[in-house]
């Protein structure tokens, strides 16, 4: 059993209260950081740990912190991105519901490292229970002297606020989040300037995911070097994976990065295999916006080696045969699932959530959704498949924020890997309404590409 860092005490009754959390060693990191370390040393520890952003992009957190501009006399902000809306991802909600103090402790440590005296937790509007939980936890921490003026007598002040969002997926994009936090329409800003230079109210700001912030607690407790020992290569530490779909035991798992995907799906310690004795057809490894992979490429790399749950291994093979770690929303599809329907469903989501600011995304997401709807309901044409590929190409990379890419990748990858299923939908317009294409050859071993040298 791998060591748990974030979810170690998840099953302790009452861990959501301050007293129990404190008994179990909570807020040690705050004491250690505020009393024995300087802010720069905290940043240095996080850098050493190799912690990478857990929200999707996987950018090294320590590096992000060190980019923060520090002009004299200007406030700096830390904003926690708890606007978790990616379909298939629910780890942050789980963490906030059950161990809210882990996030608050992380917020105190991180704010101290960045020199922020006001920090915000931007929580998705639909998560009202979590907002109440966090507010209660903040009140408890404040009573105990861990928040407010002169924390633990060290002279460091921190006010922590919870801000409910309006329930838009786009507000999970960091600049849209800042706009929304400022009380404006949640449209992503045009970068540069990056938030590290001009973020919230024009001041230098760091925006981090809930899990990244919570992960600073074990890093400070055990030291960055200790944290970096877990994991593989540049993917260090543990990661929360929200496993969903046709699995025997879906849920949130804390894994050591570098765990083989096969073990994650089939071992009894984790998901326990595919439900109802069916076979795996496809997976979406990191939340709806990453490319979908067929079963064979999920478990093995193109060269036949086992695929691991790590940033590098999941994206091995680029867009041709790889996917991405994303936010860790692991969705498994069994042999009876229709990939066309699923792609349409994702596409519908992005169409609904596009902010409408830049034209390729605003118009293109709707277009793709309509074409996919047509194919799914048996009115498609063969040319539609190529049209989809072309439209997704026109969106990808041409938009202000990554939502355009996120909308394009699932469609492009589904067609790349499951083209025969799309073609079947066009050829069998009646049959596709009540039967499925089935597993086909998606789980068969990959034929190794022949290596040709010279001419």
């Amino acid at each position, binding site marked *: 059993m791998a060591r748990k860092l974030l979810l170690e005490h998840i099953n302790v009754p009452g861990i959501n209260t301050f007293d129990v959390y404190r008994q179990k060693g909570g807020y040690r990191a705050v004491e250690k950081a505020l009393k024995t370390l300087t802010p720069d040393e905290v940043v240095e520890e996080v850098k050493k740990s190799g912690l990478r952003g857990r929200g999707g992009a996987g950018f090294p957190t320590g590096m992000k912190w060190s980019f923060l501009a520090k002009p004299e006399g200007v406030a700096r902000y830390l904003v926690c991105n708890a606007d978790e809306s990616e379909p298939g991802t629910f780890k942050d909600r789980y963490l906030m519901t059950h161990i809210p103090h882990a996030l608050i402790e992380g917020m105190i440590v991180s704010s101290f490292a960045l020199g922020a005296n006001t920090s915000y937790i931007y929580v998705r509007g639909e998560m009202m229970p979590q907002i109440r939980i966090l507010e209660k936890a903040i009140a408890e921490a404040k009573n105990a002297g861990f928040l407010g003026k002169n924390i633990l007598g060290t002279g460091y002040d921190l006010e922590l606020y919870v801000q409910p969002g309006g329930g*838009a997926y*786009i507000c999970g994009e960091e600049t849209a989040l800042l706009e929304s936090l400022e009380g404006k*329409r949640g449209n992503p800003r*045009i970068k540069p300037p990056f938030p590290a230079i001009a973020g919230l109210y024009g001041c230098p700001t760091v925006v981090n995911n809930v899990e990244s912030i919570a992960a600073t607690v074990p890093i400070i407790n055990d030291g960055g070097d200790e944290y970096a020992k877990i994991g593989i290569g540049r993917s260090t530490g543990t990661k929360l994976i929200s496993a969903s779909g046709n699995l025997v035991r879906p849920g949130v798992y804390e894994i050591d990065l570098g765990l083989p995907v096969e073990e994650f799906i089939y071992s009894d310690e984790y998901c326990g295999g595919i439900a109802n004795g069916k076979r795996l057809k496809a997976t979406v490894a990191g939340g709806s916006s990453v490319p979908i992979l067929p079963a064979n490429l999920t478990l093995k790399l193109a060269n036949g080696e086992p695929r691991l749950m790590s940033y590098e291994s999941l994206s091995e093979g680029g867009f041709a045969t790889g996917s991405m770690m994303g936010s860790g929303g692991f969705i498994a599809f069994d042999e009876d699932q229709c990939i066309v329907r699923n792609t349409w469903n994702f596409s519908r989501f992005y*169409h*609904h*959530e*596009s*902010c*409408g*600011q*830049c*034209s*390729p995304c*605003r*118009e*293109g*997401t*709707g*277009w793709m959704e*309509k074409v996919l709807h047509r194919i799914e309901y048996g009115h498609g044409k063969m040319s539609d498949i190529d*049209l989809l590929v072309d439209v997704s*190409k*026109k969106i990808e*990379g*041409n*938009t*202000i924020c990554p939502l355009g890419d996120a909308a394009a990748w699932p469609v492009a990858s589904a067609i790349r890997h499951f083209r025969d299923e799309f073609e079947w939908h066009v050829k069998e317009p009646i049959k596709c309404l009540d039967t499925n294409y089935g597993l086909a050859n998606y789980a068969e071993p990959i034929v190794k590409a022949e290596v040709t040298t010279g001419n």
Partner: protein
Amino acid sequence: MSDKVKVTIDGISVEVAPGTTILNAARQIGGDIVPPAMCYYSKLEGSGGKCRTCIVKVSKGSEKDPRPMPKLVASCRTTVMDGMEVLNITSPEVIEARSGVVEMLLINHPLDCPVCDQAGECDLQNLGYEHGLQKTRYEFERRTFERIDIGDKIQLHMNRCILCYRCVFTADQITNKRVHGILNRGDHSEISTYIQTAVDNDFSGNVIDVCPVGALTDKTFRFKNRVWFTKPIDAHRDCPTCSGKVTLWYKGEDVLRVTARKDIYGEVEEFICNTCRFDKKKTADWVIEHPTHISDTSVIASNHYETLKPLPVIQNNPQLQQANKVELEKTTKF
């Protein structure tokens, strides 16, 4: 180090002040290499970056960091660096992406140019002719909205809107109080006023001028005439609220409409007030200056060509002369 930075666009170098955007650097060169811009408006702070028609490829970041930029960038919002090399019309990738953007802009556009007042001076129409496809690949119903009257002088025809946000910025920055904005999200979003509150402001009429398409039209001019049958004349008057410098659009003896003066990129030179725009429609109200210069590529210019004068920067630079060859040949032709 000099206080100017050198940027090369499509092989043509120009020295510009630091902080200039790629688009404005290209405008200093002029000619074919200027990226089209639907949402950027130099007079409106914060505009641009949205329509994506001005995307270009940066093949060399700067002298210090020669790496190319990974994605195509919006030239209106990307500032130049010393030694930057930009590809616009010489990059097939840019041309393809731009035609993709134009296609996206047109899929929900009604293409009702024959009955649209903007036809003949419409940026989207020009863009569509230049980069669009002959036919559409979009086979679904286009989004539709009811027409809305914004006050008694302006009509909003949301079907034609491309959501460039120019009018929102105008109302924000030129007028005292903004009462209209964007409602909803994605391709359902619309420019609207809350509960159709009238925009009541001296400068509200400028939203008509900044609109690149026929979404915001002048109700005093609606369906009066086609713009290419009218004759634009520059004129001015002593106006207590604005500069009073306008263009009058004549049909015979009558002034059919009054607009602000626009430059070659379709941007107004100075914003004008509603009194000048809507109420002063007699020749007696104005001091006539001269016929407005209209680009010979515009349909409005038909039958009254003027001699073309190349920009001074082009006359001195052999490389620029090469790039603007077509334009220069036209000059000699006339």
